[in-house]
């Protein structure tokens, strides 16, 4: 047990009541601190030491060790407001869903891209790609006494996310089931997914993702809107408690079927997600052991890497960040003006200043981690005043004297704007930086009151979820460049139903070449998540999912 100095070892008092009051207040605080040290695991104690010592020598140490293994605490960036697979507003909420719910199939942890059966005993795609037959494992129970999983639940879950069930939830992920006609139930444990057209993202993104998670039809009917904060699935952990802004707690499900047998049995009694919005607070929470696992800011990476008690696990994601140009703005309508601007943006400088050099440079939209669609030979633009001047000379209009660079408060945005400002000053363009909050940024970007901007989007394992935001349909919505290219649009639509992976790959590369030709953006980075934890923890990462990690497969 750690002993702290109590009032008896304070400096001698000389009978003054004021001094005594002060001393007692300080002493009280110290005693409180001392009393509580053994309640939580002491982060300052090396875990190896705890294991080496005989816990029987000290019951408090034994208790601390037990708590350590019973509970896994994870930082989330924001309060998880809904774990409903059809609603899920934040992509990281998927990490919680991955512990509570299961799908027919799942990605194996480790980023291999291999699919494994979970709730499906068998799953088979027809040759033309329009039918998927599945047979469920039998005897799988839902949490909360909602009974056994049947094919009816599968039909309900998929059709619900696809938006085919009238009067139910407004599904945000209907596009993940773009060509679903219906799910036919052929037996208590079997059924067929019918598609109007082949849909390649189905086996890459939909079935192994959040849109493929199976929920209890009875639970959704009974809980209604509360289902999002009281999710019922078949996963190894069941929902216990949600306290807004404080914690989301799941506990091991006693009747778990073991359907996810592609990994070992879960180790933890409870998993708690703790929302910590501020990066500095999160860094400290990880350092002090208040949470066991979470993302740290790029600025804290070096510090944690230098500390031998911690591991920083950089996970390259499919998420991307870029500097965009609103092509409908009068000052940016000429392609040569845009090329000149792109030429003067120092991407390496932005990565060094805004991300401490800890992210991968992007030269095109689709990341090299993506199974298909990465344009490996994309040009890498470096600041070049002469080349930029040449583009300006070729322009049909006079270059703008002033532009506005609009940013929100996301990491690296300020640095991106300032470095661009410095670069464009060299070719005589004055840049004014306009900092807005996320909601306001969205509004001005959508309404075309924007010229240059920095933005990053998240993405899953299929390239269609990257190109969709730059399609003509998204102009005036999420296509902040307000750029509409018919060739790009045609390719995007055709690639959605193209079943040959090589042909699809070529189509996505061509789309990126079109974007490059039109100089609508300067790609900056592929986002990296810096997951940080103590050396005795072994996490389980699934980069293909929005959630990125399988919490219940963590080991200590």
């Amino acid at each position, binding site marked *: 047990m750690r002993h702290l100095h109590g009032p008896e070892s304070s400096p001698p008092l000389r009978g003054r009541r004021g001094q005594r009051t002060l001393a007692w207040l300080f002493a009280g605080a110290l005693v409180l601190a001392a009393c509580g040290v053994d309640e939580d695991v002491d982060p300052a*104690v090396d875990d190896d030491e705890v294991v080496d010592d005989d816990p029987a020598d000290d019951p408090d140490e034994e208790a601390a060790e037990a708590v350590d293994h019973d509970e896994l605490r994870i930082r989330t960036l924001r309060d998880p407001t809904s774990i409903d697979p059809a609603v899920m507003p934040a992509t990281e909420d998927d990490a919680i869903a991955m512990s509570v719910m299961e799908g027919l199939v799942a990605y194996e942890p480790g980023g291999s891209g291999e699919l494994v059966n979970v709730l499906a005993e068998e799953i088979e795609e027809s040759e033309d790609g329009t039918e998927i037959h599945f047979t469920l494992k039998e005897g799988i129970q839902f949490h909360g006494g909602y009974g056994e999983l049947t094919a009816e639940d599968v039909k309900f879950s998929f059709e619900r996310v696809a938006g085919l069930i009238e009067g139910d939830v407004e599904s945000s992920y209907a596009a993940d089931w773009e060509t679903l006609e219906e799910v036919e139930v052929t037996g208590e444990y079997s059924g067929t997914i019918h598609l109007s057209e082949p849909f390649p993202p189905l086996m890459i993104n939909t079935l192994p993702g959040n849109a493929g998670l199976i929920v209890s039809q009875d639970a959704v009917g009974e809980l209604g809107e509360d289902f999002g904060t009281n999710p019922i699935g078949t996963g190894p952990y069941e929902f216990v408690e949600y306290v807004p*802004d404080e914690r989301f707690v799941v506990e091991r499900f006693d009747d778990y079927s073991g359907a996810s047998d592609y990994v070992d049995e879960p180790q933890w009694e409870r998993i708690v997600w703790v929302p910590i919005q501020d990066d500095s607070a999160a860094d400290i929470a990880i350092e002090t052991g208040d949470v066991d696992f979470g993302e740290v800011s790029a600025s804290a990476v070096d510090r944690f890497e230098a500390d031998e008690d911690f591991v920083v696990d950089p996970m390259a994601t499919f998420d991307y960040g870029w500097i965009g140009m609103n092509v409908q703005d009068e000052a940016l309508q000429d392609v040569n003006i845009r090329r000149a601007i792109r030429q003067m943006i120092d991407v390496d400088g932005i990565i060094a200043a805004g991300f401490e050099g800890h992210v991968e440079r992007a030269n095109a939209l689709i990341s090299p981690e993506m199974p298909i669609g990465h344009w490996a030979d994309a040009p890498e633009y470096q600041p070049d005043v002469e080349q930029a001047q040449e583009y300006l000379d070729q322009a049909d209009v006079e270059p703008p004297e002033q532009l506005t660079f609009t940013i929100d408060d996301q990491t690296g945005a300020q640095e991106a704007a300032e470095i661009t400002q410095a670069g464009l000053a060299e070719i005589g363009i004055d840049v004014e930086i306009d900092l807005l909050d996320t909601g306001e940024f969205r509004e001005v970007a959508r309404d075309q009151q924007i010229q240059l901007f920095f933005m990053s989007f998240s993405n899953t394992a299929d390239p269609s979820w990257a190109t969709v935001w730059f399609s003509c349909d998204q102009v005036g919505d999420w296509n902040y460049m307000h750029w509409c290219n018919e060739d790009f649009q045609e390719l995007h639509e055709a690639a959605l139903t193209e079943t040959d992976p090589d042909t699809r790959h070529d189509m996505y590369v061509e789309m990126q070449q079109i974007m490059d030709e039109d100089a609508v953006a300067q790609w900056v980075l592929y986002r990296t998540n810096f997951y940080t934890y103590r050396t005795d923890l072994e996490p389980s990462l699934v980069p293909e999912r929005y959630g990125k990690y399988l919490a219940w497969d963590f080991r200590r």
Partner: protein
Amino acid sequence: MAQYLLKRLGMTVAVVLLVTLFLAGVVHLIPGDPVELLLGPRATDEMIANAREEMGLDDPIVVQVASFVWNAAQGDLGRDFATQRPVSMLVSNATFHTMSLAFLSLLLSVGLGIPLGVLAATKPDSLLDRTTSVISVSFITMPSYVTGLFLLLLFPIALGVLPATGAGDPSEPLNYLRHLILPASALAITWIGYFARLVRTSMLEVVGSNYIRVARAYGLRETVVNYRYALKNAVIPSIAILGVALGNLLGGSVFVELIFARPGLGNLALNAIDARNFPVLRGSILVIALLFVVANLLADLSYRFIDPRIRVEEQQT
């Protein structure tokens, strides 16, 4: 007294009503659509339109604000856009955490600031006085977010004592109190310095009074003179600013809650602004305004209660 109380209560209600009306209206001036932020990029126009209608966002702002005030008067603060939970539940949870933080900070401010001020006043211009003055002024100039970061670096990180983040479990008072110590200290430090300076100045005025000289002439001990007789009068100006202090501590809790990742009204309002979650934002604002006004009312009343001269003056007029 009853008439005064009635007048003050009436003014309190009017102020709360005006502040609520004003702030509930102002939140609508912030650009950004709550529905789009809530539903995310995959929402269709139809979904957005349906959600807007369900949330009552299609109604004119005046109607929305009036409806909020009317419902709030009946105890209904509406439902959270994101989770559909009652705002009153969210706000009451958050209020508990914020009030605990503000009250402990106030306790620390008074409990440490006043003795520090008395200590300085007992020997004016001595080394002790100069030292306490330096400490007090240093405390006044330290913003709570800077102090918070220092405390985090010192206690949980360097010394490995006291939790760094979260609020702890209210059902375990010791655990909850341990989570409160650092944020409350960070918040209190400015006011410790402020109270110390204020009490020192008041004490120096009071110790020169005839009744104190008489007390000394009777041979009473210095501690009795200082704490029983001098402090009683010297502390009155400090009580008058207790209400302001509590309001200020409530405001300052926004930063502290963010740094220590504590749930509370500040964090709730901040997240609600980010998400344009109007019902939660309005509910938080209402409670903050209410707390501020009530704190000032209590300070005013206690001032009259403690200082009999006010009551005597009132009776004479």
